[in-house]
């Protein structure tokens, strides 16, 4: 670029949005739309009008995401490349997952999830090592591990989507249909949200805390896989055969992921404020992320989570109106979604209109996650209702 920083600053007018776009932005837009059109061309026979509309919406969102946050591009491209490789290795033969080298060890969904799991756990360790050892190099490694894990997990989900069709055309569906699949989605969303804030705030100090939540998810996933054999692809029951699932579930998990991130930052906040009170000169008080930063990111995570959760709950209501005969049935899952939503509404009011800050809000964010976890897991485990297909 020929424009220097000086020259940019000297401009009275802020360059318009369009003028700020670079060649790379253009290339990104082109690539994303071409990819999407190609996908549509390949798979249009499986899609109805609503699903095409969802695809268009997703493409726009993807383009905007990449323009707004540059690292998203490399991420999306890496995932796309790996997914294409997997699809190519598979062809139309699901059995190849046992024999093809690439599939068996890297790209088959189950293999990809194992990579994801291992890398997230390593990343967690690395983030804490970087924090306590104050090592920049280890920190960078942790970031790279997290990115790689997220790429593997996302690839795994896409591949699993294809695999479900290889299993049987009538079985094929987007992999957000049971607890196993959404747990992976949850880990990925949480990781991406964290990476965004890491990138924006230019510190890796929050990493260990965010990744701790993800490692917990991984532990659950491994138990769920090996003890319960939950990883098998199951056909969709009639109630889930709807395009609504494609938007309702991911929107929900943006919410869950954001709330989880906020809660983990809440934990960091409590640790830091405790450390500052007790050992003001200790290691913890120095290396843990600063309180103002935690407070700010916590707020932004809860705001995003609240917005996403609002959309998700409304989409759920619209779906319910189509599937169950009413937009609201006080089904336990619905009701708990409302409880989660009201809880964070209270949190936001306290912060904005009453100016609360500090440990109380951090505690509330942590407890908020327990409420959220109950809505997400506990309801499926302990309460019966229309959502019972999500059971453990």
């Amino acid at each position, binding site marked *: 670029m020929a424009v220097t920083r000086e020259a940019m600053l000297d401009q009275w007018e802020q360059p318009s949005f369009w003028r700020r776009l670079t060649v790379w932005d253009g290339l990104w837009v082109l690539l994303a739309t071409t990819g999407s059109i190609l996908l549509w061309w390949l798979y249009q026979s499986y899609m109805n009008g609503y699903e095409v509309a969802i695809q268009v919406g997703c493409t726009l969102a993807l383009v905007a995401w990449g323009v707004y946050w540059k690292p998203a591009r490399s991420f999306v491209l890496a995932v796309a490349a790996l997914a294409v490789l997997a699809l190519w290795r598979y062809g139309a033969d699901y059995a190849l997952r046992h024999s093809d080298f690439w599939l068996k060890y890297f790209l088959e969904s189950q293999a990809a999830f194992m990579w994801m799991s291992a890398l997230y756990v390593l990343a967690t360790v690395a983030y804490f090592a970087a924090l306590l050892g104050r090592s920049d190099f280890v920190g960078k490694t942790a970031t790279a591990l997290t990115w790689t894990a997220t790429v593997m997990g996302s690839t795994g989900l896409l591949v699993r989507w294809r695999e479900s069709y290889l299993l049987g055309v009538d079985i094929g569906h987007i992999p957000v249909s049971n607890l196993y699949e959404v747990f992976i989605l949850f880990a990925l969303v949480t990781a991406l949200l964290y990476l965004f804030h890491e990138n924006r705030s230019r510190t890796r100090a929050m990493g260990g805390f965010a990744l701790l939540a993800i490692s917990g998810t991984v532990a659950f996933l491994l138990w769920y896989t090996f003890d*319960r054999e939950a990883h098998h692809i199951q056909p969709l029951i009639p109630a889930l055969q709807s395009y609504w699932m494609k938007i309702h579930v991911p929107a929900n998990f943006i919410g869950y992921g954001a709330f989880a991130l906020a809660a983990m930052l809440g934990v960091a906040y409590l640790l830091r404020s405790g450390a500052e009170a007790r050992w003001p000169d200790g290691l913890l008080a120095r290396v843990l992320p600063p309180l103002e930063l935690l407070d700010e990111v916590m707020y932004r995570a809860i*705001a995003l989570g609240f917005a996403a959760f609002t959309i998700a709950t409304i989409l759920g209501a619209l779906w319910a109106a189509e599937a169950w005969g009413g937009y609201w049935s006080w089904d336990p899952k619905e009701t708990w979604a409302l409880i989660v939503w009201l809880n964070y509404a209270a949190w936001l009011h306290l912060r904005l209109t009453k100016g609360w800050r500090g440990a109380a809000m951090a505690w509330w964010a942590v407890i908020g996650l327990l409420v959220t976890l109950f809505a997400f897991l506990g309801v499926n485990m302990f309460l019966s209702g229309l959502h019972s297909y999500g059971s453990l």
Partner: protein
Amino acid sequence: MPEPIPTDRVEQASPHASPNPAVNETVTRQPNCRRTPSWALLEFFGSMNLAITLLVVVAVASAIGTVLQQNQPYPDYLLKFGPFWFEVFRRLGLYDVYGAGWFVAILAFLILSTSVCLYRQAPGMLREMVRFRTNVQVRSLRGFHQHAEWRLPDRDLDAVLGTVSELLRARGYRWRVHDGGDHRVVAAMKGRYNRFGYLFTHAAVVMIGIGGLLDGNLWLKLKEWRGEVVLETRDLAARDIPAVSRLAPGAVPAFRGNVMLPEGAAANFVFVRARDGFVLQDLPFAIELKDFQVAYYDTGQPKSFVSQVVIHDREHLGEQPMEATIRVNHPLSYRGYSIYQSDFGDGGSKLDLRAWPLTVARLEPTEVKGTVDSSLKVSGPTGPLTLELDDFRLFNLLPEPDAQSGERKFRNFGPSVGFKLRDAAGEAREYFNYMAPVQLEGRWFFISGMRARPGEPFTYLHIPADPSNSPERFLRFNARLRDSIWLRDFLARSAPASDESPEFRRDFERVRLSLVELFAQGGSAAVAERARAVVPAERLQEASALYLNILRDTLAQIFIEVLRTEGVEVEQAVGEREEAFFNDAVSALSALPAHASPFYLQLTGFQQVEASGLQVTHSGGVGVVYTGFSLLIIGVFIMFYTSHRRLWAWLAVEDGATRLLLAGTGNRRQAEFAREFASLRTMLERRLGPFEEEQSAPPTIPSPDTRLAADVGTR
């Protein structure tokens, strides 16, 4: 509650207790602060504390209803809690929390509180959107987190004013200039539509709340309360339901009702359940079910439920009825009513049944024909019984019983019949018999489940199937044990040859006979009990073992005799298969008394008639609610992701120099505003020269926002 933590909130234009009243006075100011009762009421309902309390209270109240399963049949609750707590919980409305008066009242409270809040805030917000705050003091501007000052010795005030306006225009601000005599104030703002965020979200909450309440059971409750409607609690056919328990079409603006239609049947009503009863809602049209189909995946799991229906409506459709298909996730909308696929069941399948006697010496079965949902009189050992045929299922997909633990496998156990046997006193036992034999651990069984009380798990009887896939061998064996004439004769014939005295042989024969009879009446348990009754405790173990040995030997002899009559070659040895069969048969015989059925009812043929459960709904509030939904989404995003920003430039001539004080604030997204302010300041510096370092202003603590801004600003 912890104290509100005082923080650096100068920038936040909040309508509540802001540390910088100069900035926020228009929003906080009450129009008339006279303490009238209505004012106090408004103050109470619109208070933030009440609002936050209500948010939490509604959350907790909602949780209560998820702990106890709602709207179950009342007898189930009675069974679960016992009469005392059942009544207490009933009065508290815990069986239908979301329809209970107290819950609706809390919701209404939240709606009221939000409305009052909106009513009080909206005028301020709207004023805030149009009013440029030209009436500011230097002191308060210096109190802003974002501010900068210049002393410009050789600049003309109007020229500086021009530069500032130019900058504001370039950055999309709108502004007003106020001439204060010795100074000028430029008051600018941008992003005022942020205030719509508050208005939209909170109006949306009110709309969704009101719409939702209207779509709930409020109308029915009102009609009940006024005595116009009485819930029907008896199990009546639709035509017998009295008029007070019927609702004409349009009598309530919202309802949700169900009807179960067998193939070929039609209905112009639905049942609306409420608490422990229901009312019948008439529809202005009739729904006829032509066909109902369930499709299955290869694994046996259901894949789709599809109803082909015909809508009959003379008035609107004329003689030509309308055909439609209803599937899960694909309801039919007709004249503001929505019709959903919600359930399925049996619509009177015709069953061929064979009743094999179990408690008498007879082997010949009785052939019976019946339809599901009908009952037959049969005779039982202790009096007449009613056989109620309740249920027929074509598929029974169940977890694989032979699976390793943790393995997720399913097996289709095939067709089944469910029925009840009710005695003269009204006591009923429930049975569930599979049609085809089931393979378990390599052997085949006819399975029959029984439970004495609804809600309990079934206990299963496993009748071994013979090589021709029939229960006959077992039944012949069973019949032999109950044929005392034959038994006597057989035992005499088969007594082991020995040199014991004839008395001993007679006694031994008697013991064998009574053991077999005991076993046939009460299973192994009865034999053990008899041993306990007649043998002294110290010899009990030994004697029981002896009894059981004798019994087993005798049963084996009888079984071999049964095999012989079947023509099985048993002279040399009994095969492994027969031995396994014998063991299974003895287990089944031992379980027979507890099974308590005078016959084994075998399903031999069927002609399935399905029924489709349709739900019909009408919700008058849906328009309001959906509008609320849109407003809520738009509002939330506006509120979080835009910000109402204000800038002030205070200009005066002091000692021949022009003084410029620039200050600003945003009501959201402080970090972003700090960045914007920094860039504005830099631009002014390029035109006007460096700004003055702070002298008079209070030292500013680096806030998260500026820190972040500094971070981000360098990229």
